[in-house]
Structure formats: structure tokens, C-alpha cells
């Protein structure tokens, strides 16, 4: 390929460039938050395609009972890598990437507080990804113990291959990267806000990134230490998680889910943030109950660290422990519900423009509520005993992570693409992408609820031909293919729009947050002049001086 990244359009206004274009070097050597942000997005899209192909192979294998399209070993490697990739190398870095790009713009800053640390975070993700995928080249193949790496299966002698070791090392690297970007975001948000941009006025996306960052710096160390112990077990023969040598198989689960459950909120909170930006703009109304959307985020963040054992109801911790955790888990439904209702209330009485971002945001509400409700159901211990480790769970968390996070991610891409590149994305292709996604997604995952309660366990490379299992799995597989097609449309849309998309003004959606005051794409220094901030919607105040959001706010500029 040419030395120029495909993302750089050959138009006169160079993409966030360091003056003249020196090809790859300006990117590799860059410490500019916008370029690093874009590199995050590119790399995650690459990983998204890889993880998607892994999923597709699995669905093909499951299309019919007793198929032998791929061997059990390969299948296990595929679902391990699919989970790991999608969580650690797609959703997380994408949301962090958007944060890296948008947070400084939204708070009217020149850059992140620590630009070089920012670059380090990004390159550590790349490094971690390479480290993990390298394990495919080892003769025994990639890790095959599941992304949860339950001990003792992930320990010697049950996994003698090198995969799990590469896996733990790679995830340690990405863990360090996440902590670094978490720290970077916190300091940036707390200290780099433009005058007038008080903590009570920062956009909700920034709020969510702030809470997410706190989660990152406090829960990543949990899994980092667990990985360290796992590596010591595997490499130096330590005995943390090997019952045969006096270790404990359950301790790993506590450590893993102690990280793993907050991780779920790390994956969804920034998505909430994107939705909370998109819905108001396209409803032409301010977010309904800013305080409660932001406050409930803090509540979710705090609750999320105390409920991990609901992943362990079948382990036998005792009824008392199970009930307490069940209760704490159900509580999270309350702040989450508040959020959803506030989004609906924001749309209510608005004048809604259903451009592609808004389509995805609207669909997000329904798909996410679907996943959230099944989530409340499985917080109930006995129900969890029925459905845990069955396809019901697969359906549940795909509704949360695809119907939730990925839908929000798509909404965000369509919403901010003009800002990223200076060009609009094609609405026609966007609508195609949207409908294919909705149809493919629900086709793939809705039937899996039934497969689950009918007794189909997760992580099985094949299944007996029980009544309706074959047909339901076939529907699911066809849906997966449609979903794959939708992603192709999306990538095609990005390509076309980069080259021939129609030029975007600085504020094509007539949005209200500061990033839209910068040029599209923003100059290296972001703002020539940061507009005065006297409320939560600075650009609204500029456009409607007659009815500012906070009429009697003190003016500071």
C-alpha cells in the first residue's frame, strides 16, 4: 500500500495533520490526541473485523447439529480469541479512543494532560494485541481456555500450550495501557477545563469517561495481579490457582469477576455517554435531567464493584452469599433504568431528525433495555441456576455489548465522522447499514434465549439434534451472516465517504458542545478561540443569546 494511511483523504484540508504530510511518520510519532484517537479507531476496526470473522466461523460450525467444519480445538481457540478481542481490543479501546479524541475538545483543552503517556497507552494496546495474536503461530495454537481463563483449566497440566501465557502477557500490557489512559483522562478532565467549564457543566460523555476512568484505575489492578499470579503459576510453578498443590480454583473466579463485572460497565458507560450526546442533539432538546443521568453513572460505577459474585451463583458459595449478591446486583437496575427513562424523556416533545446516528441511538434504547431486563432476570439466583453457562447468557450479553455498546459506537462514528474527517458519511449507505445491523443482530441473538432455556450449553463446538435446535441455530447463523454483511456496508461507507463524502461544515448537526466550535477536522491546536462557557450548551447560548441555558450565570472569560 502507499505510505499514506487510507484514512487520510486526499482533500486540501489535511486530516488532523502536523502541518505538511510526512506519511506514516506523522502518525507513528504523533502525540496529538486527535491522531492517537483516530489510530485507536483504525486499530479497533481491524480487530473488530478479525473478531467478527472468528465469530462467523463459529456460527458456521454451529449451523447444523454434529457438523465437523472446524475441529473442537480450533473452535475453543476461536471463542476464546473472539471474546478477548471484542472486549479488550475492540469495545474498550474504541471507547477510550473516542474519549481521547473528544474529551479535550469537549472541555476546550489543547490536548490531553500527558500527550506522551497517551501515545504509550495506544501503542501498548497494539503491542498487547500482537502478543496475543502471535500465539496463533505457536505450534500448539492460540489460548483455548475461554476469555475467563478459569483455573485449573488455564493452568498446567491442563493447558500445556503457550497460548495462555501469551494471552496473560498481552492482557497485562493492555491493562497497563488502560490504567495509563484512565489516569490521563482523570487528570485531563479535572485540571484542563476551559474557564467556565465547571464539573457541573461538562458534557455527559465526559462525565461517563471520568467515571469509567476511575473504574479503570481501580479494577484493572485486580486482574493485573491475578494475571501476575497466573503467570507465576504457569512459569515458576507457584500454586495460587492449582488445587492439586493447595491452591484455590475459586480464588481465581473472585479475582477475575472482581475485575470482570466492573469491566462490563467500563464497556457500557462511555456508550451511555455517546447516546447522551446524540439523543439531545437530534431531538433538538437538552438532555432531560442532566443531574440524574450523571449521578446515576456515579451510582452505577460505585455499585458495580460490589456485585461480582453473581457470576458465581453455581459455584456453591452458600445461599446467604448468593442472596446478598443477588440483591446488590438487582440494585444496579435502578440507576440504569433512570438513565433509559431520561433518554426517552429527552426525545419526548422534541423535533427529532432521524439521521443515521439517531437511528442507531433509538435502536440502542430498545436493544439495551432488552439486554438489561434479561440481566435483571439472571440476577435472581434460581433463574441464574437455570440459564447460566447456557446460550441464554450469550444472548443476554450480546444484547448489552452489541445492541448496547456497538450500536452506540456506530451512532458515535456517524455523529462525529464529520468532525474526524471534514466529510459527511453517506446517509443512504448508513440506512442500509442500520437496517442490516438491526435485522442481522436480532436474528442472530434473539433465538439464542430459547436455545439457552431449552438446555444448550455455551462453548460447545457441536450439539445433538434435539427438537428445533438445528433450525434455531440455523436462523442464528444466517443472522450472523447478515450482520457480517452490515459491517461490510459500514466499512464501504467509511471508505466512500472519506474519498467522496460531501464536505462537512464545522457544526453540521447544529450541536451544542464545544467540539463543534472547532474546525472540521480540528486544527492541530484545536481552537483558535474557545467560545465562552456560561452553561452546559455553550454553542446553544451563542446561537440563542435571547434564551441562554443559565441566564444568571457568572461570566468568566
Amino acid at each position, binding site marked *: 500500500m502507499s505510505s499514506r494511511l487510507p484514512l487520510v483523504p486526499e482533500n486540501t484540508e489535511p486530516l488532523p495533520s502536523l502541518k505538511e504530510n510526512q506519511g506514516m511518520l506523522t502518525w507513528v510519532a504523533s502525540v496529538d490526541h486527535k491522531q492517537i484517537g483516530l489510530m485507536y479507531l483504525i486499530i479497533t476496526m481491524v480487530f473488530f473485523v478479525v473478531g467478527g470473522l472468528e465469530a462467523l466461523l463459529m456460527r458456521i460450525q454451529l449451523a447444523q447439529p454434529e457438523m465437523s467444519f472446524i475441529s*473442537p*480445538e480450533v473452535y475453543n481457540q476461536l471463542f476464546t480469541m473472539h471474546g478477548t478481542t471484542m472486549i479488550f481490543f475492540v469495545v474498550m479501546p474504541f471507547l477510550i479512543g473516542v474519549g481521547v479524541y473528544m474529551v479535550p475538545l469537549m472541555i476546550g483543552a489543547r490536548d490531553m494532560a500527558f500527550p506522551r503517556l497517551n501515545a504509550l497507552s495506544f501503542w501498548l494496546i497494539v503491542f498487547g494485541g500482537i502478543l496475543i495474536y502471535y500465539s496463533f503461530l505457536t505450534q500448539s495454537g492460540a489460548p483455548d*481456555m*475461554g476469555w475467563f481463563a*478459569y483455573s*485449573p483449566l488455564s493452568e498446567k497440566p*491442563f493447558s500445556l500450550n503457550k497460548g495462555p501465557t501469551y494471552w496473560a502477557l498481552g492482557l497485562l500490557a493492555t491493562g497497563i495501557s488502560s490504567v495509563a489512559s484512565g489516569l490521563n483522562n482523570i487528570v485531563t478532565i479535572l485540571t484542563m477545563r476551559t474557564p467556565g467549564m465547571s464539573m457541573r457543566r461538562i458534557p455527559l460523555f465526559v462525565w461517563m469517561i471520568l467515571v469509567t476512568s476511575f473504574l479503570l484505575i481501580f479494577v484493572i489492578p485486580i486482574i493485573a495481579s491475578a494475571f501476575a499470579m497466573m503467570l507465576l503459576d504457569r512459569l515458576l510453578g507457584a500454586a495460587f490457582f492449582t*488445587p492439586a498443590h493447595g491452591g484455590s*480454583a*475459586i480464588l481465581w473466579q473472585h479475582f477475575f469477576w472482581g475485575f470482570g463485572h466492573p469491566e462490563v460497565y467500563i464497556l457500557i458507560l462511555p456508550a451511555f455517554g455517546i447516546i447522551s450526546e446524540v439523543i439531545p442533539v437530534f*431531538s*433538538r*432538546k437538552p438532555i*432531560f*435531567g*442532566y*443531574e*440524574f443521568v450523571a449521578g446515576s453513572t456515579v451510582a452505577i460505577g460505585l455499585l458495580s464493584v460490589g456485585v461480582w459474585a453473581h457470576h458465581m451463583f*453455581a*459455584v*456453591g458459595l452458600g*445461599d446467604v452469599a448468593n*442472596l446478598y449478591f443477588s*440483591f446488590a446486583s*438487582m440494585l444496579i*437496575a*435502578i440507576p440504569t433504568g*433512570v438513565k433509559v427513562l*431520561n433518554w*426517552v424523556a429527552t*426525545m*419526548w*416533545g422534541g*423535533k*427529532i431528525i*432521524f439521521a443515521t446516528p439517531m437511528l442507531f441511538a433509538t435502536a440502542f*434504547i*430498545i436493544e439495551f*433495555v*432488552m439486554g438489561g431486563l434479561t440481566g*435483571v*432476570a439472571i*440476577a*435472581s439466583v*434460581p*433463574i441464574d*441456576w*437455570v440459564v*447460566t*453457562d447456557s446460550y441464554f447468557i450469550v444472548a443476554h450479553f450480546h444484547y448489552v455489548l452489541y445492541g448496547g455498546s456497538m450500536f452506540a459506537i456506530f451512532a458515535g462514528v456517524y455523529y462525529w465522522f464529520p468532525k474526524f474527517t471534514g466529510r459527511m458519511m453517506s446517509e443512504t449507505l448508513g440506512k442500509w447499514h442500520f437496517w442490516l445491523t438491526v435485522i442481522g443482530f436480532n436474528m442472530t441473538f434473539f433465538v439464542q434465549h430459547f436455545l439457552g*432455556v*431449552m*438446555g444448550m*450449553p455455551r*462453548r*460447545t463446538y*457441536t450439539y445433538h439434534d434435539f*427438537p428445533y435446535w438445528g433450525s434455531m441455530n440455523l436462523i442464528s447463523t444466517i443472522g450472523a451472516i447478515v450482520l457480517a454483511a452490515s459491517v461490510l456496508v459500514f466499512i464501504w461507507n467509511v471508505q466512500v465517504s472519506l474519498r467522496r463524502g460531501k464536505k462537512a461544515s464545522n457544526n453540521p448537526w447544529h450541536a451544542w458542545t464545544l467540539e463543534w466550535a472547532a474546525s472540521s477536522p480540528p486544527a492541530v491546536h484545536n481552537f483558535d478561540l474557545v467560545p465562552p462557557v456560561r452553561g452546559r450548551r455553550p454553542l446553544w447560548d451563542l446561537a440563542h443569546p435571547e*434564551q441562554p*441555558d443559565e441566564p444568571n450565570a457568572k461570566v468568566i472569560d
Partner: protein
Amino acid sequence: MEKLGGLFNPSSPEMEALAGLTYYTIAITVVILAIIVFAVFYIIVRYRKSPADKEEPYQNFGSLNLEIVWTLIPCAIVAVLFLLTCNTMKAVDPPVDGHEPDLIIIGHQWWWELRYTKSGVITANELHIPAGKYMLARVESIDVIHDFWVPELGRKIDAVPGHPNYLWIVAGQPGIYLGACAEFCGAQHANMRIRVIAESEEEFKEWEKQEIVIPPTPRSGLAGEGARLFQNKACMNCHTILGTAAAARVGPNLTHLNNRQTIGAGVLTNTPENLNKWLTNPQKYKQGSLMPNMKLSPAEVEAIVAYLEALK
């Protein structure tokens, strides 16, 4: 129309309680979902911006009362769900109260070892129980974490090494209930199946009697040849056959193999032909299984099959 399995066919008091709770919860959640979906669709129809309309809508920043209302409603729903949960717990998972286990279920990669404590019967993958009688099982694992799950009979329970769990097993009606390992346990997790065979008290007693008899080892003919091969080849390093020197516990106990309906934890039905195929190359039917391909000649396979069939 064929009968749906799992939750749709609860076959024990526990599972009925579970199904009940699940249906209540699903009902509640479906109502909530319906409300949200309706609201969203109403909005889509009612509040779409017409191209002509240049006015911004009324800027509404929120309402404290509404927020309070829709914070309290979820609280109430959660309270209801939690009470339902508490009520169902005991019904689904009766307390052990210091009973001695009637049977011990031990997970292996990738098969189930079943030991009846009272009668001393040892078998694999096919759990015979008297219908309508509660059997207390202690669930253990010898290698990695497994999970014992028979969808139509009740809850899942993990088989964790070094952490025995207890589970009451009961089937309302006689019949065959299929289950599988539900916790990912390695290459052949998919083929670690359970079949619970619930039968009348008498049939169960009869079966137990058959299982404890020590079959005479055939001395002559093809079967006798097979017996010798079983001892000389590596078979006896992993398997047990009562009344012979073979007493290893790595693989299933084969003493009464021909009383079982399947081989390889459910990969093949137990017929001489299938046994023949299996012995010729287990890896073909259960790739990654710990039973290696012994590279037996067809004649040897014939002999061993004859031997295993002869064990009565």
C-alpha cells in the same frame, strides 16, 4: 409438534418451582419492555421533525418529581423480584441438613464417574435413579471445573476441584432425562453428556443388583482372547473391570459396559458395531479425548468387543 425440552418441560418439583419463578420474572420484564418499546415508537411517529419546521422545540431541562417517580418504580419492581427470588430459593435447592450423600458424582475430562455410596455400585455417564425419590448427590471434580446440569430436573451445580457441592436429584416420572456439562472444561466439553434414567423402585433395585455382580472372566474363545488382550494391551492402565487385575480409575469402569446405552459420554449409541468403531479409533468420534488410538488390528478389536459384550 415435537416437545420442547429444558425449561419448557419441568420434570421435578424443583424444576417446576424454577419454571414458575422464571415465567413470573419474564412476564414482568416483558411488560416493562413493551412499555419502553411503545413509548419509543409513539415518539418516532409523533415527534418526527417536519422539514418545513424551522422552530426549535420547547427546551425542557427535566423534572424532579418525574425523576423521583421513576426512581421509586424500579425500586418497587426490584423489591418484588427479590422477594420472589427468596421464596423460590429453598424450593429449588432444599437444605442438606447433614444427610449422607446417596451418590457421588465426579467430573472427569470428559466423562462423569458415578458412585452409589449405599450399594457400592460404580458406573459412568448414565445415572439411574428411582423415580419420585430424592437422592442427595455430592458433586466433585478430579481435574478441572465441570458443571452438572440436567435441564429438565433442576438447577446447575459446579463440580469444583477441592470444593465439594451438594445437590438433591429427583425426577417426578420415570423416563430418560438428558443433560450435559455446563462449565467449559476443555477440548471435548461438548461431548460430556449425562443421561439420567429414572425408573420404578423395583427396576432400580434390579439394576443395582446386576451392577454389583462380579461377572466371570471368559477363559476361552474370542471373548477369552479379548480378555487377555485387555490385560496385555494398555487398556487396564486406565479402566476397571471387576474380578480382573484391571482396577484403574482414569477412564470409566467397564464392568457392565453392555448395560449402558451410550459410549464415550454420549457420542455413540452402545452397539457392538459402534463399540468396534470406537475401539478402532476413539479420536475419530471424540477428538482430543484422553483415550488414545491404540492402533489395534481389526482382529484384536473384534476380540475385545466380544469380551466386553460377554461381561454380564
